């Protein structure tokens, strides 16, 4: 989110009064709930990025683990003097450290899938809108058929077909999500296409590539930013679900979903923390992204601009 906002094109004419970026930032910060969401999201991202620095232990370095510490409740003292604030799992792994590392994997998979899907969806949607005719019919028909099936079903079919693995999970997420971007960017582009600046660009005999990417694309970005934000959250949730079902990431890439699945068997004997805390981390991530997306939707909607 923070990296996307500055890319919003600043039209020179408006800059004299107030730059669009400045306006959007001011509008965004006017809602306290959204600010809380943004703050939470920043904390989550920071925790993921700096996981190796802030974690009490490296949860996947076997020399730092001791099976004797296994399944300790939250707040237990470790023999080396530290405290397991969120308890330990069956391997004696500090849950807090495991969550930081898990966040890293979950966010990386979600973000990678979103960026790839965004690129494919943008290209497909813009192509459909710009060329129209048969190209448009074919692309949009594929989008329609795909969107009529629930994401989880498509993901399971793809995993059943492709097999398991990090790359394959990302491929499945991209296959699901590109359709949302294609549909959104096409409807935005169809509106923009009729405007005068597009006509002017065509009269200047600019190349189609230049018209599409320098003129059409920047003006279609605001709705795309909103959809992309929502879809990052959806991608993270879906990856967690697949990993929980044992069809997602391999055990060597323990995302939050895998941590939760790992604690499932201990839940029934009352050792709740192994599943509970990774779930809270997942929930905080998704809620904060959704809060930010909700506010972005209002701020970037031209009909609501003052």
């Amino acid at each position, binding site marked *: 989110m923070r990296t996307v906002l500055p890319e919003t094109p600043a039209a020179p004419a408006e800059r004299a009064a107030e730059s669009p970026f400045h306006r959007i930032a001011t509008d965004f910060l006017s809602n306290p709930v959204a600010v809380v969401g943004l703050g939470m999201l920043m904390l989550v991202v920071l925790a993921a990025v700096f996981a190796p620095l802030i974690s009490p232990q490296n949860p996947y370095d076997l020399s730092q683990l001791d099976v004797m510490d296994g399944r300790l409740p939250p707040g237990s003292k470790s023999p080396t003097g530290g405290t397991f604030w969120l308890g330990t799992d069956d391997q004696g792994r500090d849950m807090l450290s495991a969550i930081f590392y898990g966040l890293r994997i979950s966010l990386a998979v979600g973000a990678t899938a979103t960026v790839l899907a965004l690129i494919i969806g943008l290209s497909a949607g813009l192509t459909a809108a710009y060329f129209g005719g048969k190209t448009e019919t074919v692309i949009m028909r594929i989008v329609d058929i795909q969107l009529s099936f629930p994401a989880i079903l498509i993901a399971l079919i793809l995993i059943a077909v492709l097999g398991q693995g990090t790359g394959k999970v990302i491929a499945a997420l991209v296959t699901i999500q590109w359709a949302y971007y294609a549909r959104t960017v096409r409807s935005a582009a169809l509106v923009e296409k009729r405007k005068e600046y597009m006509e002017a660009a065509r009269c200047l005999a600019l190349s189609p590539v230049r018209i599409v990417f320098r003129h059409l694309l920047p003006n279609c970005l605001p709705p795309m930013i909103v959809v992309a934000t929502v879809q990052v959250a959806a991608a993270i*949730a879906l990856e967690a679900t697949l990993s929980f079902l044992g*069809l997602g990431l391999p055990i060597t890439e323990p995302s939050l979903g895998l941590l939760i699945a790992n604690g499932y068997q201990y839940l*029934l004997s009352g050792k709740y923390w192994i599943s509970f805390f990774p779930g809270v981390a997942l929930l905080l991530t998704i809620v904060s992204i959704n809060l930010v997306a909700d506010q972005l939707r209002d701020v970037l909607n031209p009909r609501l601009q003052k």
Partner: protein
Amino acid sequence: MLVFIIRRSMQSVVVLLIMSLLVFVGVFAIGNPIDILINPQADQIDRERAIAALGLDKPLWEQYLVFLKGALTGDLGRSFVHATSALGLILQRMPATMELAIAAMLIAVVLGIPLGLWAGLRPNGIAGRTIMAGSILGFSLPTFWVGLMLIMVFSVMLGWLPSTGRGPTTLLFGLIPVSFLSWEGLRHLIMPATNLALFKLALLIRLTRAGTRESLLQDYVKFARAKGLSNSRVIGVHVLRNILIPIVTVIGLEFGSVIAFAIVTESVFAWPGMGKLLIDSINLLDRPVIVSYLLVIVTLFIFINLIVDVLYSALDPRVRLTDSKG
């Protein structure tokens, strides 16, 4: 109307054929079920006999044709693992999934529409804001984790509800095994159904609220009030009837997605439905069952969409089902 239904059915057959081909070829590529199903200690002759028995020695296109021929007679192949008819296996599990999905949808509708209406009538009240905040949470909570937390609270800590399985089933109309007719079965049903309902509940709340707020500004509502109609009549007849049209569409379309998402809930609660069967089959590479499940669910989807279209026209006289729409 009849022409519309016939046209749609023909299109559905084409979609089904394409799906069956895609799924069959795709699932064929998963891996080699022979390695899993045949005892590694078996000698070469035993291996070959088993491969021939499963029909895995034939080329892919021939396997597909055999499958297609069988499909026309309702035979979608035999499960590698259970050694019974794959379709039979799925149909046997279907009532459990259907019961769960219908129960979830009922919970979502019975709670979602009144809550959404309330939030829409008083958007700035405390109750309205709480309902909306709750619906954002409902969208954000990962289904499987909520399921785990329900088990933790109601089964492990409080010990009120059973955590897994379906409980005893009773035959409905002497045919369909269902849980909800006995108290013990109902106790098994309530947690999975609530879990599955949460997401749709949030969706229905938001949809009803948005519809209510929009229709309150319409002229016909102002006119109804100006006529001096009672508040309950304005809301119950004039507002509710108009917002019901999009809601019915969404309920219809979402029913398919509830069946799909039941895969997750069934896995958490060990509910013996089609979804759990699918996950088990993917893990065991039981190809005929995976292919049959997908074909059954695609058929269900096509059927549901058709019903929604027909219902839509019945509810909204402005909609005419024409050839161009199909």
